[in-house]
C-alpha cells in the first residue's frame, strides 16, 4: 500500500475539526485532509435543530443545523480536502493513519494528526440501570437524530434522566415535536445545570425529581413504565413510553486508545499539553474528546488555537520535527474531576489562556495551584454550580523549567 500524503490529517468533522482545518488553510498549510466517518461533516450540531450555536464564530445565533452547514461551507471554501464516510481506524506513530472507506482500507501519511472525535453521552448500560431492555431507551443525541434528521417520533411520553444542560435540549426537542416529557429525573440531589435554566422545565410543566433513583425499566417490546425511588424514600411508578438518558458525556476515545496515546482518567480522553499535543508528539487533540463537554463555540475556538500551533510548527515544511517537550504534569486533587490540559510546557507558543477545570459537584472555595515544593503559584476563588466549567487563568504565570509535578487543589470554604 503506498500511502497518500498530507501535511495535516484531521480526524472528525465536528466544530473542532472543521475550525482547525479552516485555520490551517488560512495559515498557508498546503494539504489538509479532514476525515469524517459520517455521511457529512458537521459533527453533533448537524442534528441539533435548535439554537444556540454560532455566537462566537459568526456573531449571531443559529440552529445547530445551520451552524454546521456554515462551518462545512467555510471548510470547502478554504480548500480543505473533505473525506466523508472515511473512518480512521488507527493513528501513529510518525503520522501514519489507517482509514476505512467504501473504497477499502488505505494508509495515509501526514506530518501532523489532529484527533477531534468528540464525545458521547453515557448509556443506560454504562450507568448499570436495572430492569428489562425494551425499545425506546436512548440518549439525547439519538433522539435529536430521530426527529431532526430522520423525521421520526420514537416516543410520545418519555422520562428524561439527567439534568445537565443537554437535558434542556432534550426538553426543547421534545416540545417542538409534540413529545411531552413526563418528568425529569436527576439522581443527584441537586440539578446539574445552572439553576436559572431550571425555570424552563418548570415553566413547561415538566416535574423535576431530584435525588430519585431508577429502580427498574419495564416493558416489552417497548418501554411501558419506569419505577423510581424518590428522594423521600417512597417508590413510585411513572407510565411512559421511552427514556432519554441525557448527559454524562464521555470522550469518543476509541481511536486514541487504539493508538496507545496516554489517557487521563479524569476526562477519559488523551492527556494533552496547552498546545493540544498528546503523548505522541505528532498527534494533537482538540474539542470534546479532551474535555467532556463544552459548547460548540469553545471547541471551535480550541480547534483554531491548536491549528495555529501546528501551522507554526510546519512553517518550515512538512519535515519539521515535532516538539518533544513533555511539560510538567498538573495533578488534580480531591473534589476535582479533571483539569485540562494535564501538562504545561509554557514555551510561549499559543499558550493556554486558562486551565479548564471541572469539580465533582458544586465548588465553593479556593483553587490553589502549587509546585512540587508546595510553593503556591496562584489562587483563584470559585463559586460554581455542579457541571459548570471553571476557568483558572494562567496569564502572566512564570514557571520554572523543571520536571516536578504541579498540584491543583480545591480548598472548600469553611
Amino acid at each position, binding site marked *: 500500500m503506498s500511502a497518500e500524503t498530507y501535511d495535516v490529517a484531521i480526524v472528525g468533522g465536528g466544530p473542532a475539526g472543521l475550525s482547525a482545518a479552516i485555520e490551517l488553510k488560512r495559515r498557508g498549510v498546503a494539504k489538509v485532509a479532514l476525515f469524517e*466517518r459520517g*455521511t457529512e461533516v458537521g459533527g453533533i450540531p448537524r*442534528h441539533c435543530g435548535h439554537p444556540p450555536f454560532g455566537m462566537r464564530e459568526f456573531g449571531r445565533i443559529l440552529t445547530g443545523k445551520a451552524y454546521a452547514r456554515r462551518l462545512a461551507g467555510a471548510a470547502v471554501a478554504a480548500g480543505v480536502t473533505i473525506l466523508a*464516510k472515511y*473512518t480512521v481506524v488507527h493513528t501513529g506513530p510518525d503520522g501514519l493513519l489507517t482509514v*476505512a*472507506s*467504501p*473504497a*477499502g*482500507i488505505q494508509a495515509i501519511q501526514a506530518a501532523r494528526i489532529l484527533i477531534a472525535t468528540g464525545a*458521547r*453521552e453515557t*448509556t*443506560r*448500560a*454504562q450507568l*448499570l440501570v*436495572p*430492569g*428489562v*431492555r425494551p*425499545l425506546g431507551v*436512548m*440518549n439525547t*443525541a*439519538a433522539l435529536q*437524530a*430521530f*426527529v431532526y*434528521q*430522520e*423525521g*421520526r*417520533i*420514537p*416516543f*410520545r411520553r418519555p422520562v428524561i434522566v439527567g439534568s445537565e444542560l443537554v437535558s434542556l435540549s432534550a426538553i426543547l426537542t421534545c416540545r417542538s*415535536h409534540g413529545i411531552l416529557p413526563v418528568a425529569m429525573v436527576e439522581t443527584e440531589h441537586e440539578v446539574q445545570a445552572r439553576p436559572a435554566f431550571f425555570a424552563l422545565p418548570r415553566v413547561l410543566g415538566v416535574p423535576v425529581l431530584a435525588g430519585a433513583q431508577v429502580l*427498574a425499566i419495564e416493558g*416489552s*417490546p*417497548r418501554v411501558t413504565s419506569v419505577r423510581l425511588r424518590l428522594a423521600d424514600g417512597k417508590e413510585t411508578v411513572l407510565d411512559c413510553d421511552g427514556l432519554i438518558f441525557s448527559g454524562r458525556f*464521555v470522550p*469518543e476515545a*476509541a481511536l486514541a*486508545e487504539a493508538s496507545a496515546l496516554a489517557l487521563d*482518567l479524569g476526562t477519559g480522553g488523551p492527556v494533552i499539553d496547552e498546545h493540544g499535543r498528546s503523548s505522541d508528539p505528532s498527534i494533537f487533540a482538540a474539542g470534546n474528546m479532551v474535555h467532556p463537554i463544552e459548547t460548540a463555540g469553545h471547541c471551535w475556538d480550541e480547534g483554531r488555537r491548536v491549528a495555529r500551533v501546528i501551522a507554526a510548527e510546519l512553517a518550515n515544511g512538512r519535515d519539521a520535527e515535532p516538539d518533544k517537550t513533555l511539560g510538567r504534569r498538573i495533578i488534580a486533587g480531591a473534589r476535582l474531576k479533571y483539569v485540562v490540559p494535564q501538562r504545561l510546557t509554557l514555551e510561549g507558543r499559543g499558550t493556554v489562556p486558562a486551565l479548564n477545570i471541572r469539580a465533582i459537584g458544586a465548588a465553593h472555595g479556593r483553587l490553589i495551584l502549587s509546585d512540587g515544593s508546595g510553593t503556591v503559584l496562584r489562587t483563584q476563588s470559585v463559586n460554581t454550580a455542579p457541571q459548570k466549567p471553571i476557568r483558572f487563568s494562567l496569564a502572566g504565570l512564570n514557571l520554572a523549567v523543571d520536571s516536578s509535578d504541579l498540584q491543583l487543589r480545591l480548598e472548600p470554604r469553611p
Partner: protein
Amino acid sequence: MTAFGDLVDAVIIGAGVVGCAMARRFSLEGASVVVLERAPDILSGASKANSAILHTGFDAPPGSTELQCMQSGYDEYMQIRESFNLPILETGAMVAAWDDSEEGRLPELLDQALLNGVADARLLGRAEVLAREPALGTHVRAALLVPREIIIDPWSAPLAYAMQAKALGARFQFNARLLSARFDGDLWHLETPTGTLTARSVINSAGIQGDSVERMLLGEAQFEIRPRKGQFVVFDKAAARHLRTILLPVPTARTKGVVLTRTIFGNLLVGPTAEEQEERERPDVTRPELDMLIAKAVELVPALAQAQVTAVYAGLRPASEEKHYRVHCLPEKGYFCAGGIRSTGLTAALGIARHVHGLWAQSRTVGGERSAAPPTFLLPNLAEHLPRDWQTPGHDGIVCHCEMVTGREIEAALGSPLPPGDFGGLRRRTRCAMGRCQGFNCLARLASLTEGRLSVPIAPEVDP
C-alpha cells in the same frame, strides 16, 4: 416438501438454538417441518443470552445424555462450521483455583475430564497459569487447563441451522404462539394466532415454557421448569487484551459459576449469575448483581478496575427441578420433548437434534428422503479477529461505527431468506448498536433503514 396448512411430519415448538438445530436435522433427514415461534424472530429466549462457550463436556455428568449430546454437538459444529463460515476463537479454558479447597478439587475435576474423554485436559501450576495469563490476580493457585473449550458466535450458528432448514423447505412461523393442541389418535391439530396446523408429530423445544407446552399437549407434564437467571456485564473491547483464556471457577453442585471470557466480537464478558426465580418472562438486570459481577471481574483480573462497561444483559436458563436434560418421548402420540436444556444447549443443540431425531425415526415406518447434497451458504462474519465486511471495498459506508457495521451488511440481513423480525434480531445478525455507544450514533438511522421491514418497528411513528 409441504405447503403450510397441509399435513406435516413434525411441528417444532420454539425457535431457540435447540428448535433451530431440530429443524435442520429433521429437514436434512427428509421430514417436512414447521417451526412455531411465539416471538418475532429466532433466538428470542435463553438462546439470545448465553456465554457463547462451546464446551467439551469435561465437567458434565459422566454417561449422561447431556454429555453425549454436548460431545456430538461439539463435533458436528466443528465439521459443518466451515461450510457456513461460522467462526471459532480458540481460547481454551482454565478452571482456576483461588484457595486451598478449590485447589484440592482440581485432581477430581481432571479425573472427570479424562473419564469424559477430554484427554488433553491437564493441571497447571501457579507459574504456568501466570505465564499464560499475566494479568490474573496473583493469588491464583493452580488451574485445570481444557484446551478445546472455545468461543463461538452464539447467534450466527443457530441462524445457519435455521437457514439450512429453511432452504430444505422447513417453514418458520413467527408471532405464532402455540395456543392449544388436540391429538385425534393419529394426528395433531395445533392452534396458533395465524391458523391451524395438522402434524404427525410435535417436537417440544419451548425452553422456558417447555413444561407448560407439554401440559398443553399431554394434559400433564413430567417436569417443571424452574427459571434460573443469569446476568452478564460486557466490558469494552479495550478490556479484552487482559485475558485470552476462558476463566472458569471451580464448579459447585448448583452452577458452573461466574465466567470471565472474551467474546468472539472482541469484548470481555463476566457472568452469569445463577438466580432462581418464579418469573419466566422478565429477564431483568439488577444493580447489586451487576456490581457483584464487576467486583468479581476485578478480583480475577485487577486491571479491569479501569474497564468501561459496554452492555449488560440477562438470560433465563430453562432449568428444571432436576439437573439433567428432560429429553423424553411418547411415540404413540408422536410427542417428543427436548426440555430443561439448562446451561449447555448452545453446545449440545446439534447433538440433541440428532438424538431426538433418532428417537423419532425409530418410532416410524414412513419417512422422506434424506437430503443428498444439503444446501449451504456462507454467513457474514461478525467475529472481530476475522475479516469483516467493512474491510472489503464496495460497501456503501459504515452505519454503526462502534461495531463497524456497513449499510451493505444491514441490507443483506434485511433481505436474507430468514430476515430479522425485530431490532434484536437485526442486532444479532449484524452487531449494529451493540457497541460502546449503544445507538447514540446509529439508532435513528437504523430506524429509517429498517422502515417497514421489522414486525416491531424501532420508532413507531413518522413525524406528520
